[in-house]
């Protein structure tokens, strides 16, 4: 029950951020991919089962919000949640470098997937490519800094030991 409440709360916070503060930044050309970031964090924290569930829920909500193909974000984010959750067992999840690389890769994949649906001809690919690269780098940098700040404020590791945690969560 606690997991479901946490999942819904984090999904709502991410979607609110996406439709308010981050949409203003996106209009200025800087996309911070909060969907990919939140999915990675949740999969790190709770393993592949909750990671894929979180990805599916937040992806479906984002699909409904943007009024485009239903399932577009849901499919990729649920797969991403599962993959990151599985991968996190073998990673030092509290390492800033690990977080940076995983968030960077997750955002890159998600942005490439989104861009594939917007691709409308060769003339537009430089803009889409630039957006994908900038979004990946910006989200990875901002996400890693945010996780570092939260870790400092809490005074303890955010994700705990990988193997022990994944056994209890899945």
């Amino acid at each position, binding site marked *: 029950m606690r997991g479901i409440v946490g999942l819904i709360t984090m999904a*709502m916070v991410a*979607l*609110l*951020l*996406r*439709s*308010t*503060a981050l*949409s*203003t930044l*996106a*209009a*200025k*050309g800087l*996309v911070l991919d909060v969907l990919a970031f939140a999915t990675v964090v949740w999969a790190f924290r709770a*393993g*592949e*089962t909750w990671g*894929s*569930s979180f*990805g*599916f829920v937040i*992806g*479906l*909500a984002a*699909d*409904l*919000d*943007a*009024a485009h*193909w*239903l*399932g*577009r974000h*849901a*499919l990729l984010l*649920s*797969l991403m949640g*599962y993959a990151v*959750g599985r991968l996190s067992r073998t990673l030092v999840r509290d390492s800033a470098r690990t977080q940076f690389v995983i968030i960077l890769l997750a955002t890159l994949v998600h942005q490439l997937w*989104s861009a594939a649906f*917007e691709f*409308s*001809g060769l*003339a*537009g690919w*430089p*803009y889409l490519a630039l*957006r994908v690269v900038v979004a990946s780098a910006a989200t990875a940098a901002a996400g890693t800094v945010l996780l570092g700040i939260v870790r400092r404020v809490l005074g303890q590791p955010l994700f705990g030991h990988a193997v022990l945690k994944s*056994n209890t969560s*899945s």
Partner: protein
Amino acid sequence: MGGFLPPAERRSSALLGLYAALSLVLLMTGERIPQSWLRAGGAFVFAPFDRVVLTADRVAAAWRDNQQLQQHLAELEVENERLRVAGVENQRLRQQLALPTLHGYALKPVEVLALSGEAVPAAATLSAGTHQGVREGDAVVTAEGLLGRVGESYSGMSRVVLLTDLNSAVACEVESTGVLGVLRFSMAPRPRLVLTGVPLADTVRVGQQVITSGLSRRYPRGLPVGRVVRLAKDPSGLVQDIEVDAAARLSRVRQAFVIARPPALEDHP
């Protein structure tokens, strides 16, 4: 194959399979599912939270806006007086030429609760809906210019299809020359508003203002849309490629005004 995996992993794999299958089914059949009521539910749930998140930002912005508005008000008072005189003269001249009288717009103030869309916002959620008299098809403007058109209206809120939606089309004219075209949003080679369908023979200059023409009967005539910022020849060689900078700033939109859609042609005698 699942039998080789521990039960917990089997469960998570099965769950992932279910999510993937559901997503694929939605991707293939989503167009046929009525999504309007689902989005209405989502908007209803998120609207109170959107208001809370935006309140802090708006309190800070209100003080700054107030100072700017005071100055703007003084300038407008002076301009208004000049326009009033011109308006009386215009009415008299139109009567002499037997042209129909122009009517003003009734502006309904609303709050923009949220913007949604990939990279460039394509839709906005407004704080007013059918209960406040906002109907589908109503035009939405800011103090600077046209924002879009109400696409869906619920009881207490509504969704606006912005100019930056790929399916948006606005019948426009270039002010002062009357050159007609249709404003569309294009993603290639970069996100931009383009005035389409303008023949090469028509003269358009950078800096000219683009306003709604009213020819589509979707928007009232004379709403500012933007300014011409770049001119080129379309790859087809038949028409001009006219890039327009929108008058309304999507990244700063907080308040907007709803204008009732023009009456249908059949309503006129």
